[in-house]
């Protein structure tokens, strides 16, 4: 009973963290970008205000199939929120006993698929181009994450999330080369996972006008934007969960602050890279992912021999 209560409490905590902190990170991103670009930039709370403004706007139904469009917006948001329950934030994941890594991969892919749905349902030329790009990117990018998790599960000899996410590069029997390799792969792919420059091909405002999202406005757009912010929060959290050893001080509050600080550093790195790069073309992007994929496979092979 007590376990259930704790799980419930930390579930609420994790959801609240994603909902409340993700826009703050986004605001931070905008502020840092502004500084890099010699601008003043919006206040750090701007992203909250943007979301609120979009949420109270009239919900305009345009595009081919409005029901599908509404569904895809809700699907992307709920899929990404479900992920929040599977990832440790300061303490172990709230639903660690209830779900495994396969579910995590499914949910993250589902968030991507909902973007495909959104583009398909809108039916404009630009959203279809964006959709086909998203599909190409997904097919080459998602396996990287899967392999990263599988490498960990090979070491942990389990598919349970708590077992996988507790591992670090040098735990167990010294330095694990496969994990060092996969750390590199995921680090190089992080920019792509969160859809930031130079990998924002699916939205590419100056080419295909936000791609799948071109027909969206108001609350639906707010949900997609929220999803994007949450993605940044969750992928950085997952990165920390996979590779950064947890410093357990025993106090939840301290652990949480340490965790958020680690995240902030990652967000900062992502932001600076995004601000200093031009967008790659989709073929260049896919080639880059393919190269990372080869390294990821190598890491998997190593992991099998190491365990």
């Amino acid at each position, binding site marked *: 009973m007590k376990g259930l209560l704790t799980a419930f409490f930390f579930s609420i905590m994790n959801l609240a963290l994603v909902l409340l902190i993700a826009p703050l990170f986004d605001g931070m991103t905008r502020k840092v970008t502004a500084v890099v*670009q010699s601008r003043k930039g919006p206040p750090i709370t701007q992203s909250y205000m943007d979301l609120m403004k979009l949420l109270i706007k009239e919900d305009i139904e345009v595009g081919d199939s409005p029901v599908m469009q509404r569904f895809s917006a809700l699907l992307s948001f709920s899929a990404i929120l479900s992920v929040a329950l599977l990832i440790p934030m300061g303490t172990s994941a709230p639903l660690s006993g209830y779900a495994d890594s396969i579910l995590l991969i499914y949910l993250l892919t589902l968030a991507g698929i909902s973007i495909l749905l959104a583009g398909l349902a809108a039916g404009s*030329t630009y959203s279809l181009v964006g959709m086909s790009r998203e599909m190409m990117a997904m097919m080459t990018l998602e396996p990287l994450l899967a392999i990263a998790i599988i490498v960990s599960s090979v070491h942990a000899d389990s598919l349970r999330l708590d077992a996988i996410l507790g591992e670090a590069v040098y735990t167990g029997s010294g330095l694990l080369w496969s994990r060092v390799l996969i750390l590199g792969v995921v680090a190089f792919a992080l920019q792509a996972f969160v859809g930031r420059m130079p990998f924002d091909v699916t939205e590419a405002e100056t*080419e295909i006008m936000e791609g799948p999202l071109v027909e969206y406005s108001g609350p639906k757009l707010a949900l997609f934007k929220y999803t994007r912010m949450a993605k940044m929060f969750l992928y950085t959290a997952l990165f920390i969960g996979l590779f950064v050893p947890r410093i357990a001080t025993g106090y939840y509050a301290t652990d949480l602050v340490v965790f958020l600080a680690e995240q902030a550093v990652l967000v900062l790195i992502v932001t600076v890279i995004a601000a200093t790069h*031009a967008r790659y073309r*989709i073929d260049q992007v896919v080639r880059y992912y393919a190269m990372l994929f080869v390294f990821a496979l190598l890491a998997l092979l190593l992991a099998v021999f190491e365990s």
Partner: protein
Amino acid sequence: MGSHDILNKIRENYGTSITRADIPADNRLLVFVHPDSLKVLANILFRDLDARYCVGIGMDDRPYSGDFIVVHDFAFDKENVLLSLIVPASASDPRVPCISDTIPAANWSEREMRDLVGITAEGCPNPKRLVLPDGWPEGLHPLRKDISWNYVPESFDDTKTYPFDDPPPGTTVVPFGPFHPTLDEPSHFRLYVEGEFVRGCEYRGFMVHRGIEKLADSVMTYNEIPMLAERICGICGCVHSVTYAQAIEQAAAIKPTPRAEFIRSIMLEIERLHSHALWVGLAAHILGFDTLFMQSFRIREPVMWLAEKITGNRKTYALCLIGGVRWDITAELGAEIKEVLDQIEREWKGVFDAVKGDRNIMARSKGVGVADKKLVKDFSLLGPVARASGMNIDVRRDHPYAAYDKVEFNVITQEGGDVWSRIVVRILEVFESIKIIRQCLEKMPQGPIQAEPAGELPAGRIGTSSVEAPRGEAHHFAVTGEGNRPRRWRVRAPTYQNLQGIPAMIKDQRLADMTISLGSIDPCFSCTDRLEILDLRTGEIRLWSQEELVRSTAKIRRRRS
């Protein structure tokens, strides 16, 4: 070699076809020919003598000579001669042989001639409507003298749509425009896309015509037109006002004062500075590199302040008059310009250092939007686009005007012909501009900035003028007239030529490269759109008479005060 030598050369071999030749100046040549020999002679100029095609002009000369007149302007860049090939066309059935089947660069000029003046180029390979809106009735030609500047046709049919060509089999149509975040101005490219690859495109532009040429030859006066010319373009406005003034000065043999020539050069280079900085920023933005975009605009800002200090305005300098300029550059201003130039040079070096080794930008721009030398020649592509393809042309050096023959600078060329080369050319040209302004400030003589009034200008004289705008050569053709205004004034902005090369540049490229390929010519749609005398309100066609306009603006003014 001057215009005499070129004339002799033509005369030697093809003399029989020339009915008359005038040499108004050592670097101008007017050749009158019979329509039958137009085609042969144009090809000889363009291919054998390697002249560059400038523009074709259709003119309603019925009130004066009884005929229509067609003029094709050519430039001899090595010899510093601008040549006008002049052909009459009968008033009853205005037809001339087409030259665009062998000189592709003349295609738009011939189509525009047909739309606006009603002169048919027989055998034109793509005789579709170019300038007039879709619903405009056939057989009505707004630039004819018997149509007033504020005429609106009763029979305008706004249900009519443009007959686009069928897409090639296996391709889908992706509309690029009329509104697109990277265009900033309305313009429609119908792309035929196969997967991610562009297989072809059709262009439909000219959506924001403002009747500038018609206004000039029916409403404005000589010294008002520079202010109008400036409004052709929001970026290179000063270029157009200088080009216009020079065309009239050349026609009427007026010499601007030496100090005015230096001031013109300085302002033209200031304009180039801000234009190139703007372009580098926009190109970076198209590639998604917003940091370079912002930094480039930050560096550009002091240039705008400088312009404001000199002329009172960030843009639209209201600088030029026939025979001089309106603003002087004082010693204090000169000192300030030097300071700002030092700062820009320093910061722009930083930009160049950052860009020149950037593999990320290279990955997106090398081998993209390639224009080879043949394409440049065939379509008379201009400015940085031509120079990035290894064509060593620059009007400032080849046809010196203002004070450019008194300063030294390099013409920057690259060999790649792709977007990357255009980026490099433009970035390096900024340093040359800085060099030119410094020399101008050094060498500028004292004296008046405006020539003595010349009295009434003689009518019926032809003047041509070329100025190197930031985007390439701007070319104006003017015929002086009665009532203190020109009979005809034809503007050819560089984008008019460069846009014609775009379909070949983007063919078989990826869709993602379309925007930067188009952006790399620094397109200026408002520059190509100059004529429209139509007012559409609430879907109905309605004519605002001049009184109504005056009344409504007066009402607004009253409300404001």
